[in-house]
C-alpha cells in the first residue's frame, strides 16, 4: 500500500484504516467495514471516500463501487444527522410498525429516504433489524429503540433534536 499522504479522514479513522488493512489474510477483507466507518465520519460514501479506500486497498474504484452498491446500509448521498430507521418487517408490522413509520413521517414531514430541510433527521423504512421480540422497533443511527409507541417515539426524537440521544458510533 502506498502511504496515504492527504487522507480525507480524521487521524484516528486513518489509523484505524491502516490497522484494518493489515490484519486480514487478504487486504480486501477490510473493504466493507471501511466503507461503513467512512460513511459514519463523512455522512455518506462520497467520490473522495471511494477514491481513498480504493487506493488504500489496492483496488480499482470500480471494485469499490461494485461492492458499495450491494449493501443497503451504504449510501452515496447524505442522510440526516440522525437517520431514523423504522422496521416494518413481519413482527414489527403486526405489532404496529407501520403506525410508527406513519407517525415519523408526519412528525418529521418527510417520507421514506427523505431528509428534513435542516438536515437533522432522515427517515427510512427498513427490513428486519433483529429486534423482533421487542417489536415494534427502530434504529436511530446505530441505536436500538424498542417496544415503541407513538408517545415514546416523540420523546426519542425530541431527545435527539436536543442533542440528548445516545449515539453509539
Amino acid at each position: 500500500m502506498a502511504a496515504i499522504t492527504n487522507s480525507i479522514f480524521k487521524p484516528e479513522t486513518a489509523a484505524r484504516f491502516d490497522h484494518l488493512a493489515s490484519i486480514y489474510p487478504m487486504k480486501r477483507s477490510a473493504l466493507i467495514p471501511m466503507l461503513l466507518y467512512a460513511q459514519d465520519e463523512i455522512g455518506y460514501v462520497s467520490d473522495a471516500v471511494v477514491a481513498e479506500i480504493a487506493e488504500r486497498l489496492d483496488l480499482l474504484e470500480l471494485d469499490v463501487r461494485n461492492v458499495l452498491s450491494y449493501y443497503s446500509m451504504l449510501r452515496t448521498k447524505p442522510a440526516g444527522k440522525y437517520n431514523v430507521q423504522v422496521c416494518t418487517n413481519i413482527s414489527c408490522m403486526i405489532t404496529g410498525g407501520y403506525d410508527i413509520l406513519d407517525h415519523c413521517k408526519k412528525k418529521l414531514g418527510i417520507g421514506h429516504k427523505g431528509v428534513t430541510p435542516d438536515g437533522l433527521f432522515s427517515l427510512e423504512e427498513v427490513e428486519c433489524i433483529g429486534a423482533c421480540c421487542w417489536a415494534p422497533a427502530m434504529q436511530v443511527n446505530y441505536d436500538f429503540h424498542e417496544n415503541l409507541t407513538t408517545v415514546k417515539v416523540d420523546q426519542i426524537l425530541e431527545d435527539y433534536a436536543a442533542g440528548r440521544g445516545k449515539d453509539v458510533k
Partner: protein
Amino acid sequence: MPVLVSHPDEVKIISKRFGQGAADIDKYIELDGYKAVQKCIEQGPEWIIAEMKASGLRGRGGAGFPTGMKWSFIPKESAKPKYILVNGDESEPGTCKDHVIFLHDPHSVIEGTTIAGLATGAKMGFIYLRGEYRYLLKIVEKAVADAYAKGFLGKNIFGKEGVDFEIITQTGAGAYEVGEESALMESLEGKRGVPRIKPPFPAIVGLYGGPTVINNAETIASVPAIINYGGEAYAKVGSERNGGTRLFGISGMVEKPGIYELPMGYNLKKAIYEVAGGIKGGRALKAVVPGGSSCPVLLPDEIDVGLDFDQMAKAGTMLGSGGIVVLDETVSIVEFALRTIKFYQHESCGWCIPCREGTDWLKKTLTRFYDGGGNKKDIANIQYLAENMMGRTFCPLGDAAAMPTLGFIKKFRHEFEAYLEGHRTEKHFITTDELIGAGH
C-alpha cells in the same frame, strides 16, 4: 435494551449467564467461563469432536446440520490455512437470538470459536456481525481485546506452547443474503454477497480458499456449555436426534414476547400459550410462522407439535432459526404474505434468475392483488411462480421466498378468494404507492 424474560420450563444452559454482566471477562470467568476451552486443550481434537457428536447439537442457523459431523469434515492436513467463521449476520425476520448472546455472553462465542479451532486445527477465527449490530460489535470487540490481554487468544494461549488462536471481528453493511454461508465468505473477502456454487463445500474450499467451518453464532455459543455440561447429558435434555436446548424467540401477538431457552422438542402450543403467556388481549390465534419468515405457516390446529428439526419437518414446515412469529385473528394473510415477499424481493442478490425474477413477479402480483386489482388466476399464478422457484437457485433464498408463499396459498386459499370478493380486514398497514419501485 432488550428485555430479558424467564419461565420455569426453561432449561438455562446457553442463557445461564444472561443478565449477569458476563460481558465482563472476570465475571465470565467467575461463572465457569474459559474452563471448557482449557479442558479441550488437554483432551485434544478427537475428544472434542466426539463430545460434539455425542451432544447431538445441530446447526442453529436453520439448516440443522450436525455440528460434530461438520467439524469432522475439515481435512487434518491442508496446504492452505483453515478458518472458523461465526455467522452472526442474523437477519431472518422473526429472529433476534444472537442479538441477546452478543449482548449478554460475548465470551461464550469467543470460547466456542477457539474450541472449534482446537477441534479442526484452524488457527484463525472470524466473528461476523451484521452491520446494524454496531453496539454489539463494540461489546464483542472489547471481549476479544480482554481475552487477548489475559492470554486466552493469540500465541501460546493459556500458556500452552504452540497453541495459537487469533480472532478477528467483522461487520457487514446490510444484506440478508450474506447470512448464507458462501455469500458470507464472499462478503468477508470484501465482495458483493453473492453465493458460490457448491461443491466444493466450505469444509474443503472456503474462506480464502482454505478449509472453513461456518457455524451460526448460537451454535458456537453452545459449544463451551456442552463441554461443561457433557455431550451425552446435553443430548438427553433434547428430543430424539435433536440434542439439547435452543433459544426460541417468540414474537408477534403474545403477552410475553422474548427469548426463551427451551429443550428441543418442546411443544409449540405450550410455548405460545404457557411460556409466552398466550395471545395478546385474549384474542384468537390465526397462524404461527414457526422458525423465521421463510418457514411455511402453521394453523392453530397444527401447533400441537414438538419444536425440533424432525417433528417440524413432519408437520410440513421447518424449525428454521427458532423465531416463532404469532399472528392473531386481526392479521390479514394477504397483507402478511405481501410483506414477507417484499422482504425477499428486496434481499434477492439477483444472481439466479428464478429468484430475482420470481420474487419480483410475486411482489408485483401480490401488490396488485392486495390493492384490489386481483383475479382468481392470480392465486394459481402465485402458486406457479413459487413452485418454479423451488430448488432452482444456487442458494436457499429462492426457496425461502417460495416456501412461505406456498404455505399461505395452501392454507389460506379461502382468504385469498374471499379477498377478491371484498372480504378484507379493516386494518391495512402497507401503502402500495411506496411499495412499487421503492427500490430501497
